[in-house]
Structure formats: structure tokens, C-alpha cells
């Protein structure tokens, strides 16, 4: 192994993600400058950070679920449902805001609980369980809501529209949620159990961990965060919409952001910071392509290629660094060196 590869090997996945983010940033600065604008102007930064907010909420939740060894494909529908409940309950009345928020997040939590129970108790793979629940919600939305519904009051809409300087309030809330999720993962028992269950569920069970609890917790938190994304969208749009979740393609994009951030799709290894890096990369890419007025069809091509290439970059890295058990040259101690006595003949 040459030195370069060795240095590369020693970086953690999270650090690689941020290197890729830095590379994208530099690319962005060069390209945006070439058409006479500044990448760091307040409008551009605000646009990038706004693009991280909704996907960020969902991606944080998706990280927890993937760490537990599951998946969540129902997020777009939960988000749409959340926006409808929020806008419908608030109905342009500032006094209803708190109740609307609580009801929305409560409903999302109940959906997450249902998914968690299906995954943990009925032993259904997360892909199918959440695909199924997502379809159930989708049918309900399509039947009962034929267009935008409800209205969010002005006070609530400020959340989606204002910011501290160029940083939107929604991004700050999203980063706060990320911080809480990191606390959960690294400082609480549930968090450690989450990593264990995702790593190897059989080992976790025989170690005495109740494997149901972390999985259900992860799904509940994921759905609640999808609910928060729905609240944010209700705030930005001013109304609830049954299609706002599926418009954004948040299910597959969030999974892509999580994997881009270095989390293993099979679970057990990954960080929230990596996911945030992945979300940031997507937002910057989208911003750069929009500013350069790239053909919308080509945008999808770029996204697809970036996802695969970026993951390929660190997928081949050794997951667990362990010293070689057998020396390269055969030595007397290694069992392989001793001839196995033939039987019979």
C-alpha cells in the first residue's frame, strides 16, 4: 500500500464526507464566480441552507432508523399528512398553533410506533413495513384530500420565512434536533443499544439487550422528525398539501444522504454529522446546478452519478481495522503451515 492510500484509509467516513463537501464548495465557488456571482452572498447561502432544512429533518430520522438496521420509506407521506393536520387544525388562528403542533407530532409518533411494532414484533423487514404503511397513508390522503387544505397563521409562517442573517430559523431548529439525536446516540443507553442492534441483532439479543426498544424508538423519532418537516413545509407554503412530501422525493433522497454520510446501509455504523454532511452536499449541488441553469433532466443524472461515486469512494474501505492474524510469510506457529495428515488411504 502506498502512503497516499494509507493516509486515506485512516480518515473516518465522516471526515471523508466533509472533504467531499469541501470539494463541492470549492467547485461551487469557481462555477458561481464564473458567471459573476458570489457563492457566499447572503441570498445564495440562504438558498443552500433552506435546501438543507426539510431534507435535514428527515435525514436525521432516517439515520437513526438505518443505524438500527431498518429503513423508512413512509416519510414523504407522513410529511404530507403532518402538513395537512397542522394547517387544518391551525386554520389561520394563532391560538391553535401549539395544539396544532402537538397534534401533528403526536400523530407522527403514533405512526412511528405502529411501524416500529410491525418491524420489531411482526418481524417484517423495514423496507416492506414502511412501504406498506406509506401506501396506506397515501391512499387515505388521495381519497380525502383533493388539493391544498387549511391555512397556517402568520405567526407560524414566520418560522419558515425568517432567519438570523442568512441562516434560516428552520436550519437552526434542524441543527438543534441533530444535536439532540447525537446526544441520544452517544450518551444514552438506548443510543448504544441502537448501534448494537444494528450491528448484529443476534449478538445484541444474546447480550441481554431488549432488541425491540431501540428499533421502536428509532422509528418513532424518525416519524416525529418527518412530522417536523411537515410542519416546516406547512409554514413555508402557508397551506397543507397532500402531495408536498412526494413532490420532494424525500424517501430515497434521505436514504442517499445517509449513506453518502458514511452510515452503513446494513446498520450499526454511522454518525449524524456524516448525514448532515451528505445533506449539505446535496443542497450545494442543487444550488450550483440551478445557478448554472443546468437542464433539469441532467440534474438527475448528476445526482445519480454523485450518489454512486461518492459512496464508492469509501465503500471499499476496511470496515473494521484489525491487525492481520496470520503473517504474510508462513511461520511455524501458523496452523496453515502444518500439513494435515491424510485420513485413510
Amino acid at each position, binding site marked *: 500500500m502506498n502512503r497516499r492510500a494509507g493516509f486515506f484509509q485512516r480518515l473516518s467516513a465522516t*471526515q471523508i464526507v466533509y472533504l467531499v463537501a*469541501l470539494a463541492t464548495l470549492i467547485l461551487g465557488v469557481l462555477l458561481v464566480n464564473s458567471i459573476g456571482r458570489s457563492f457566499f452572498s447572503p441570498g445564495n447561502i440562504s438558498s443552500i441552507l433552506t435546501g438543507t432544512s426539510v431534507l435535514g429533518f428527515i435525514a436525521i430520522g432516517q439515520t437513526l432508523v438505518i443505524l438500527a438496521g431498518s429503513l423508512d420509506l413512509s416519510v414523504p407521506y407522513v410529511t404530507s399528512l403532518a402538513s395537512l393536520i397542522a394547517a387544518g387544525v391551525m386554520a389561520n388562528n394563532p391560538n391553535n398553533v401549539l395544539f396544532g403542533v402537538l397534534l401533528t407530532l403526536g400523530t407522527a409518533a403514533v405512526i412511528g410506533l405502529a411501524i416500529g411494532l410491525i418491524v420489531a414484533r411482526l418481524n417484517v423487514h423495514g423496507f416492506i413495513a414502511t412501504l406498506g404503511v406509506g401506501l396506506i397513508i397515501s391512499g387515505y390522503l388521495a381519497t380525502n384530500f383533493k388539493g*391544498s387544505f387549511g391555512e397556517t397563521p402568520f405567526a407560524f409562517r*414566520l418560522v419558515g420565512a425568517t432567519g438570523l442573517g*442568512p441562516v434560516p430559523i428552520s436550519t437552526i431548529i434542524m441543527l438543534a434536533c441533530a444535536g439532540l439525536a447525537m446526544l441520544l446516540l452517544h450518551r444514552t443507553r438506548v443510543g448504544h443499544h441502537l448501534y448494537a442492534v444494528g450491528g448484529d441483532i443476534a449478538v445484541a439479543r444474546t447480550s441481554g439487550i431488549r432488541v425491540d426498544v431501540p428499533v421502536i424508538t428509532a422509528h418513532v423519532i424518525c416519524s416525529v422528525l418527518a412530522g417536523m418537516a411537515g410542519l416546516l413545509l406547512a409554514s413555508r*407554503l*402557508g397551506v397543507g398539501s397532500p*402531495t408536498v412530501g412526494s413532490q420532494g422525493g424525500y424517501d430515497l433522497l434521505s436514504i442517499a444522504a445517509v449513506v453518502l454520510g458514511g452510515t452503513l446501509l446494513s446498520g450499526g455504523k454511522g454518525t449524524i454529522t456524516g448525514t448532515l454532511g451528505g445533506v449539505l452536499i446535496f443542497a450545494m449541488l442543487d444550488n450550483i446546478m440551478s445557478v448554472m*441553469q443546468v437542464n433539469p433532466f441532467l440534474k438527475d443524472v448528476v445526482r445519480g452519478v454523485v450518489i454512486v461515486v461518492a459512496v464508492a469512494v469509501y465503500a471499499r474501505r476496511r470496515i473494521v481495522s484489525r491487525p492481520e492474524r496470520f503473517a504474510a510469510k508462513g511461520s511455524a506457529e501458523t496452523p496453515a503451515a502444518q500439513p494435515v495428515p491424510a485420513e485413510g488411504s
Partner: protein
Amino acid sequence: MRNNSVRAIALAAALPLVALTACTTEPSVTQTTGAGTGSPATNGAASSPASKDWFDQSLYDTQNQQRSATFEGDPQKPYLQYIAGPMTDTSKYAAKGAKKVCFANASISNPWRQTGWITMNQQLKVLKSSGVISEMETRDAKDNDNTQIADIDYFIAEGKCDAFVISPNSTAALTQAVERACQTGKPVVVFDRGVETKCPTTFIHPIGGFAWGIDTATFLSDKLKSGDKVVALRILPGVDVLEHRWAAAKKIFAEKGIQAKDYFTGADPTEIKKIISDELATGDVKGVWMDAGDGAVAALEAFEDAGKPLPVMTGEDEMSFLTKWKQTGITAMAPVYSNFQWRTPLLALEKIFKGEQIPTEWVLPQKPILADELDTWLKRNQGMPSGHYAKFGGEDLPGYPQVWQQRQMP
């Protein structure tokens, strides 16, 4: 275990990203207006019934009258015609020199929008060479409300726009963003779907969905008898331009005793064929109503495959439907959602920058293609791909016919 140098590099990578958040210049994201959006002006965003009833009697009556209204302007240039009504005074916008236009497009995700987008760009070329417009920057929202709001905000902050052209993705959700654009004091032209505010300089659209529904349902009811079965194929729920069409058609079918059953197809020809085949298996289908022309061919083929007589049909001015209509000789008509409306926003801006008065609500003609005109329209659009729309209105633009035949996207 980790190298200090590695840590240092990681920090260096993170630093510019932190710097992004440290910028504290004056707040560029301004508050939304209080008064205008706080109390809903129209009842479009009414929060009462979950399953909204899209039928609006007053709008229905207005559009019904507009079907036979006289349009001001040259019939050879239908994209500049309008129904006489209140005009906006644009003298404050009059200025010399080429201007920059910022266009927030909902998407180009269906053939109708793609055809219009190509036409708009050819129109742009003409206006560029005549010095009216210096450039048009476009942001495509890919059918996403949230993205389009961000696009409009970006234009306001960064675009240095002299004018805004917006084709909203949905009516209620984009209202606040359009109002923010109006507040910049620059002219704002909204076309295709509308928004729930009267602040734009002009709102360009053909007569509307109710007129479409009336035209098509009346045609089918005239050609069929009471008690006949009509299958209504609808693309998606929840889009007001489409919902209005069905609301009007449903009313007329009910009045005339036509048995109409509606299905959602997602514009997927496979679905359409299955739906029609299943319907034909249970009984006779005498007529087919569509709220958009995509997939009309598949519907007719379903009849052919089942060996049943072809129905009376309404499609759209999409080339695939027109050619199949000619080929099979069915009794049909093609309603239109005037694709040439994509030319009008830039031409309206030309007038605005000259200070000419323009209609506040610019209602374009919406004349369906009937059997006697079919041959003319086929001739004018010879060689065009099946996803092209006959009334694209760009025959006099540069690049005709190659640009549309090859569907050259900018």
C-alpha cells in the same frame, strides 16, 4: 489513534462551512406581508371541508359567457388577443434598454410544458435580437412547491431581475412568494395556474377549465343519447385547472343523463388501456372523455383490441391524438389549453417596458379543434413529434419547424 494532521485537515475542511453560518449581514429574508395574506381574500384556501367541492357557479357562468366572447386583437396572433376588461397602467415601468427577466418555472415534466418551454425560448430569441430583453434566467422547480418558493426568493435576493415571470406550481402555496416578488416593485407576470393575490401586473391564462368541461361535455352529450356510458380519464386529483374541467363536465353529464364514470390514470397508457378494457368487459362504452390528451391513443387501441366499435371522444390538441383521430375517422373534438400562452408573458413584458396598458387579467382565446379544422392543423404541424401540441402558436418564430420537430431544449 488518529493522526493530528488528519484532524487538522478535517478542521480545515469544516472551517469554511462554519464561516458560511457566521455571516451576519442585514436580514435578507424579509417577513411576509401581514395584511394581505392574513385574511384570505378568496375562499380558495377555505379550511372547512376536507374533500373540496371544486365547482364554483360564478366562475362557471363567467367562463361559459367567455366561450362566445369577442377577443380584442388580431386573430392571426391569438397569443396577443384578450377579452376587454380592466387594464393595468404600466407607465411607471417604462424604460429604455434591454432588461433582464427572471423566470420561475414549475417544471417541464410533461409534453405540454415542454412544447411551451421550447416556444418561449424561441420567442425570447426574437426579443433578444430586438433589444427588449437582455437575458432570461430560469429556475426549474421540478414540480416542487417548496423549491419554487426558494427559487423566487433567490431571484429576489440575487437575481438582479428587472421583471419576474412566474408559472406557479400550485395556487395557494405560491401566493406568499408571488407577493414577495410584487413587493420588489418590479413587474410580475403570472401565467398558466394563478395565485390567490391580485398583486401581479398581469395574470395570463386561457378562458379556463370550466369552459373546457362545458365544450367537451356538451359535444359528447350532443353526439350520444341519454343513458349512454362515458368513461372519463383523469390524470391527477388536486390540480385546479384539471379539477375545474371535470367539475363542469360532471355537471353537464348529470343534466343530460349520460352515465359518466371517472378514473385516475396518472397519464400512464398502460393504466388507461387496462381501465378501458375492464370497462368494455362489463358493458358498452360509447364515449371517452379525457381531462388531458396524454394517452388518448392507448384508449382508442383498447377499443380496437377488444373488437368493439370506436367511441365518440374528446382528447386534446396533442399530435398523437390528432393523428389517431384522422387515422381512425372517429367522431371527436380536441379541446385546447392554448399552448401559445407561453409566448404571451414575454410579449406582455415588451409592452410593459414600453409603458403600454395591458389587461390586468389577460384572458386568451381557447378555441377547440373541431372536425372541419383537423386537416389544417395537421398540415401546419407536419413532422412534429407525438408529444407536440398543435396550437403552440410558434409558426412565425425562428427555427420553425426544426426546433420543435427535434425538440431542442435550451
